[in-house]
């Protein structure tokens, strides 16, 4: 274990401050400890699967093939038109091939005809049920129409190409604004969708319309229009599709065991949601479905979806043998899931003194062909960044989520917040520059502080149940330390006149789980030798969550993280969990682990009391013992384990359980800084440095937190500079793989500096908030702001190309000329 030297600068718990927090209503914090008293947390504990990974021993779904000698390989036949009906599917040529085990179409009994949502969300999903497993009505190039299982992948491929599909083509629509037109082709009839979401109007391809308001926004804008001291500033922003580029393509193995129970080894972020959804869709009891998550090659939201499990299961039922379905990279880039493209408008009323009097944000989200996560992602465009400014009295946020005949948007790390932060944080910078205010001072004047009451997070909700009090906020220290690291006050200009350097900043906020819609649970079992098994539903997608769980449990139980065996994310073996999404794993599942460990600790202290003949109140755990603070006597956990299991007098298996659900979702905060040099002759720009300072509460494992930040910035860098999907006029995808997509490589990354600012969130486990999504939000606005700083032009459409910048520079010189 490597204790962080730099964590010693974190201030010790101040009793006066803690008292003040009790006075403001926060619970007193028994788990608040100075760094010097932490044993297993705020430590760079080695990731528990690190050695397996570097030796190639870590098993991902496709690596389980050797467990299934009769494994069949699946392949999906996909629509090659953007919109139409399947008139017929001729499977005869495929079926007669040697080695073909099954061919399925929408017309087969084994394929359910029910509507469902693939979104891995709580029940009933806040996403429309608009999908079918195989689709007779195809709505984008890539929609699954049929599927094949064969003895080997090559045969499956050849057979899939022999399936002949005849279509009746319909007109298609690709632009979200055109899709609104009365004359536009309509993707869904009213009875094509169940579980419709708020404001849906399928006659206009509208999946959802929503709006919410605090104060009186129209009145404020009206008054401001005749007031010289108040300024109305409007801006518009546009963002593209982004691919998760998930390293491990979606992969599932489905089989039925000797007890007739249906088992899925699958690359998923949501094992329990998938279990429920499979059971509902195929009409089998939940208890007869088992979903196991092995190591997974990341998710980033793409696997917060039951994307391929139903096709795999239908193939398994038809072939009557285990089936593996593994997506190709081309399918990942054309047919799976993406970040929603959006167009946003932001307007504010700001006084001469830099007070924001009103904010009005609108987003038009292109949901693509289906509505998975459509409304909820668009909701987050406002409800994540607007809480950066919770004291603004008049706020409106509204949006439309529209279908087009393009691939479907879905959950992607950040979940609407990257789009929203681009609009809000580049807008705020533009306001400051137009009003001649310092962009950072202007924002800090209005930005969130500890103790603020945040209503904007609940702007789309009725009542005040989800209004939150901000109990931890390190945003000012993030800005201070970020400014210093980037050299904000004194950027040296290049020697050549046509090269201009600038620095930009964006404030960032996210949440820690979905308020009021999370549940995590865990159980601790002691072994005789003083070690523990920790069963937890929480899902490690590669982030190191299993390691974090072991650190939290060890800190409570007084053992080392190595003494904790983590069993996670298997619906047969572990308690329930909603899954890894919305930055919930540390805050929700981690808190459940802490409660389970505390429950087991009570039993340890009881047994310690018996063996040491002292009252349990005088005892605590630490260094592998139960010890008495009063007498200094101790008994090891191992002695307790053997005595509790095999003692003559009384015996007990020491267990603990913990559940956590809450209406809280405290925001982590950050400040993203970008240092850029622009070539004014060509419009080319070069990033010199990225700095991200984060307040995620207490970092349980600082090295893993840094990894989250650096990886999040990587995606954010791509969003700002190079990631985009394009389609031809018929809706055919033009980006088919990594070669056409601008995923940044080692050589595309500028220097990165990562700063952790510790605060203590009283509602989190040992003071922790979330980190995973926070750093995906910052580079687009901070880069737009840095370019504005360097050369005075504003870029508003992602990704920023040299051509866009050159055009903007030419327009600027034309205006000046």
């Amino acid at each position, binding site marked *: 274990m*490597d204790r962080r030297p730099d964590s010693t600068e974190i201030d010790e718990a101040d009793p006066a401050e803690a008292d003040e927090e009790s006075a403001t209503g926060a619970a007193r914090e028994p788990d608040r400890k100075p760094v010097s008293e932490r044993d297993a947390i705020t430590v*760079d504990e*080695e*990731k528990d*699967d*690190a*050695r*397996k*990974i*570097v*030796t*190639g*021993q*870590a*098993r*991902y779904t*496709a*690596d389980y*093939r*050797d467990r299934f000698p009769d494994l069949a390989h699946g392949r999906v036949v996909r629509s090659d038109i953007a919109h139409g009906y399947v008139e017929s599917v001729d499977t005869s040529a495929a079926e007669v091939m040697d080695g073909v085990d099954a061919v399925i179409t929408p017309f087969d009994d084994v394929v359910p005809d029910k509507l469902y949502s693939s979104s891995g969300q709580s029940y009933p999903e806040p996403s429309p049920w608009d999908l079918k497993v195989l689709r007779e009505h195809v709505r984008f190039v890539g929609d699954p129409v049929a599927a094949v299982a064969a003895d080997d992948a*090559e045969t499956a491929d050849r057979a899939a190409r022999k399936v002949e599909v005849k279509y009746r083509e319909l007109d298609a629509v690709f632009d979200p604004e055109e899709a609104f037109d009365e004359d536009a082709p309509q993707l869904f009839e009213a009875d094509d969708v169940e579980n419709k979401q708020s404001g849906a109007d399928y006659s206009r391809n509208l999946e959802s319309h929503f709006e919410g308001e605090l104060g009186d926004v129209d009145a404020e804008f009206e008054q401001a229009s005749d007031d010289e001291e108040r300024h109305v500033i409007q801006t518009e922003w546009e963002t593209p599709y982004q691919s*998760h*580029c*998930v*390293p*491990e*393509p979606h992969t599932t193995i489905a089989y039925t065991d000797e007890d007739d129970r249906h088992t899925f080894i699958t690359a998923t972020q949501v094992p329990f949601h998938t279990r429920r959804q499979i059971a509902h869709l195929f009409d089998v009891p939940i208890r007869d479905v088992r979903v196991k998550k092995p*190591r*997974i*090659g*990341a998710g*980033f939201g793409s696997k917060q979806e039951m994307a391929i499990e139903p096709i795999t299961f239908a193939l398994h039922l038809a072939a009557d043998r285990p089936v593996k379905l*593994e997506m*190709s*990279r081309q399918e990942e880039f054309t047919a799976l899931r993406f970040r929603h493209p959006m167009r946003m408008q932001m307007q504010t009323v700001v006084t001469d003194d830099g007070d924001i009097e009103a904010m009005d944000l609108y987003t038009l989200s292109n949901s693509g062909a289906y509505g998975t996560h459509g409304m909820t992602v668009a909701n987050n465009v406002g409800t994540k960044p607007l809480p950066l400014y919770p004291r603004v009295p008049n706020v409106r946020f509204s949006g439309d989520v529209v279908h087009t005949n393009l691939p479907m948007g879905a959950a992607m790390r950040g979940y609407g917040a990257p789009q929203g932060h681009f609009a809000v944080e580049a807008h705020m910078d533009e306001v400051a520059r137009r009003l001649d205010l310092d962009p950072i001072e202007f924002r800090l004047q209005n930005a969130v502080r500890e103790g603020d009451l945040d209503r904007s997070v609940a702007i789309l909700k009725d009542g005040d149940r989800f209004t939150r009090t901000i109990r931890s906020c390190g945003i000012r220290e993030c800005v201070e330390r970020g400014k210093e690291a980037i050299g904000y006050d004194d950027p040296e200009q290049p020697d050549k006149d046509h090269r201009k350097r600038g620095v930009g900043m964006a404030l960032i906020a996210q949440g820690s789980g979905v308020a009021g819609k999370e549940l995590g649970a865990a159980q601790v079992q002691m072994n005789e030798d003083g070690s523990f098994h920790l069963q937890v539903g929480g899902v490690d*997608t*590669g*982030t*190191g969550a299993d390691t974090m769980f072991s650190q939290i449990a060890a800190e409570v139980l007084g053992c080392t993280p190595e003494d904790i065996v983590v069993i996670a994310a298997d619906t047969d073996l572990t308690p329930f969990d909603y899954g890894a999404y919305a930055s919930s794993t540390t805050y929700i599942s981690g808190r459940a682990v802490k409660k389970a460990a505390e429950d087991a600790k009570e039993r340890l202290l009881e047994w310690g009391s018996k063996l040491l003949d002292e009252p349990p109140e005088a005892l605590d755990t630490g260094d592998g013992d139960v010890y008495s603070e009063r007498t200094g006597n101790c008994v090891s956990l191992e002695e307790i384990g053997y005595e509790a299991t095999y003692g003559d007098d009384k015996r007990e298996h020491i267990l603990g359980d913990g559940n956590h659900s809450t209406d809280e979702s405290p925001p982590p905060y950050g400040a993203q800084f970008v240092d850029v040099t622009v070539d004014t002759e060509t419009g080319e720009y070069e990033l010199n440095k990225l700095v991200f300072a984060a307040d995620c509460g207490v970092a349980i494992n600082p*090295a*893993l937190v*840094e*990894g989250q*930040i*650096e*990886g*999040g*910035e*990587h*995606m954010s860098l791509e969003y700002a500079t190079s990631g985009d999907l394009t389609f031809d006029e018929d809706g055919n995808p033009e980006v088919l*793989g*990594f*070669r056409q997509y601008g*995923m940044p*490589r*080692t*050589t595309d*990354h500028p220097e*990165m500096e*990562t700063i952790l600012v510790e605060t203590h969130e009283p509602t989190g486990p040992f003071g922790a908030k979330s980190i995973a999504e926070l750093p995906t939000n910052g580079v687009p606005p901070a880069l737009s702001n840095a370019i504005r700083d360097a050369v005075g032009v504003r870029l508003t459409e992602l990704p920023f190309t040299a051509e866009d910048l050159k055009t903007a520079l030419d327009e600027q010189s034309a205006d000046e000329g």
Partner: protein
Amino acid sequence: MEIELEINGVEQTVEASKSDSLLDVLRRNGYTGAKRGCDTGACGFCTVHVDGEPVKSCVKPVTKARDASVETIEGLGTQNDLHPVQQAFVDNTALQCGFCIPGMIMRSTALLVENPDPSEQEVREALSDNLCRCTGYKKIVEAVLDAAERMDSGTAVAADGGQTVDSDGGAATVTECSRTDCGCMEGDQ
């Protein structure tokens, strides 16, 4: 058809079809450390060494690997006896989901054979065809530079597989690398 080749020092005869890639054959025969990320040679997750050269095994027809000497991640170190590059990845937390890591490590060991003392820029260029979605590459580049330093200074890796050895600490014992195939060049010192 049957193909003869050497995998991690062991002569083998494997069943293959004409259209199989080296990756297909490796994975079918239990060498699943090499990952399938794109099947077009564009991501680097399947990188192995063929006759000492880093190769994307998904676009290498197995027929072109006849009689070749192939080294995969499974031939490097074990969990309790890591190769210095593997140890450096562990100690620098230079991994998250891990799907790119076997390829990344194989590319890195090839680099360090060719250039035992690379600059940061040289590491970045050598790894530029190996994608990683989780880490932002920062800790990976740091790990490779750290590995170069450890191998260069001859600092041993703890054989118990437990604790990190401080690369400039006095407590570290210097031992020669006993592996003939690890490419750490310590035998040259």
